[in-house]
């Protein structure tokens, strides 16, 4: 049981990596990066303590 631990951890590691990459790809296909860009190129009044 104990000897399977590193293999299980590596499985989770690579599984999460694949999931993260798939989510980024899905987000890019839906154009979510443009929503991020739109927000980031304007001064966020809430962030700086005004709005």
């Amino acid at each position, binding site marked *: 049981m104990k000897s399977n631990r590193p293999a299980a951890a590596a499985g989770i590691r690579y599984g*999460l990596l694949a999931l993260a990459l798939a989510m980024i790809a899905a987000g890019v296909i839906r154009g979510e990066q443009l929503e991020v860009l739109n927000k980031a190129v304007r001064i966020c009044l809430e962030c700086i303590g005004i709005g």
Partner: protein
Amino acid sequence: MFGVHRDRVKRRPPLQRIVQLCSAVLFNGYALGFRKGKIFTGRSKAVCVPVLNCYSCPGALGSCPIGALQTSLGGAGRRFPFYVLGLLMLFGIVLGRAVCGLLCPFGLVQDLLHKIPVPKLKVPPALDRPARYLKYAVLLVLVVLLPALAVTGAGVAVPYFCKYLCPAGTLEGGIPLMLADPALRGLAGALFNWKALVLLVILAASALIHRPFCKYLCPLGAFYSLFNRFSFYRMELDKSACVGCKQCERSCPMDVEVTKNINGGECIRCGKCKAVCPTGAIASGFAFGVKGKSANDWRKSV
């Protein structure tokens, strides 16, 4: 006395500090913005940086992931934030909380403030342990639930964490922009006073307690801590070489039980334990293989 002076002159900045400074400059490389009092508007801002770095900082070349997550959750479209969450997971699984210890500019600010020679405060474990869970509450309530559920009349939600708590936004965005732009200064009111107070309290606490914001409040640290146990970049303790002197635990700024839980959620991979270990039993590095790597293997590979 002269000996102390000579020692100070000889001392080189640790690798952690060099990496922290480089990343702070890299993430905030638009120097012209500080002079003009304007923010960068290039396309690189479509990409989130791994650290808490306000996108309204005049130098910021990328987006803050926590700000972007709140915007995606609270936007008019109400869509699941695949892109931002995917990026956060990618940073988390590759680096874990090494992001906090090695890359975060606000972590660097806290580290430098802690160098101020004032008496240091040890938070009693009975208070410290439950308080560590606060950052998860901040992540869940201010970053996820309120932006997703508490919508204004205009159909969008306020970025609650940025608006009411984030000290990085005040320090990196609010203060430089207001110094450069009198019109913005004129708009500052009660909210700015509140945020300035939060910033002041955190900065003052940083001189007394090591990284209080990272320990108790940072939602990004809370998110990455979930990945620390599995991240590719990790710490390793060679138990056969450990002599149980506990120097590692005494030197740990995050009070991690290094000999019991070296890859626990609170470890920010700053490497202080590794530096003080008398037998070299602690190593850090990227683990790509299936087999567990010992500290000795890492030393050999380096």
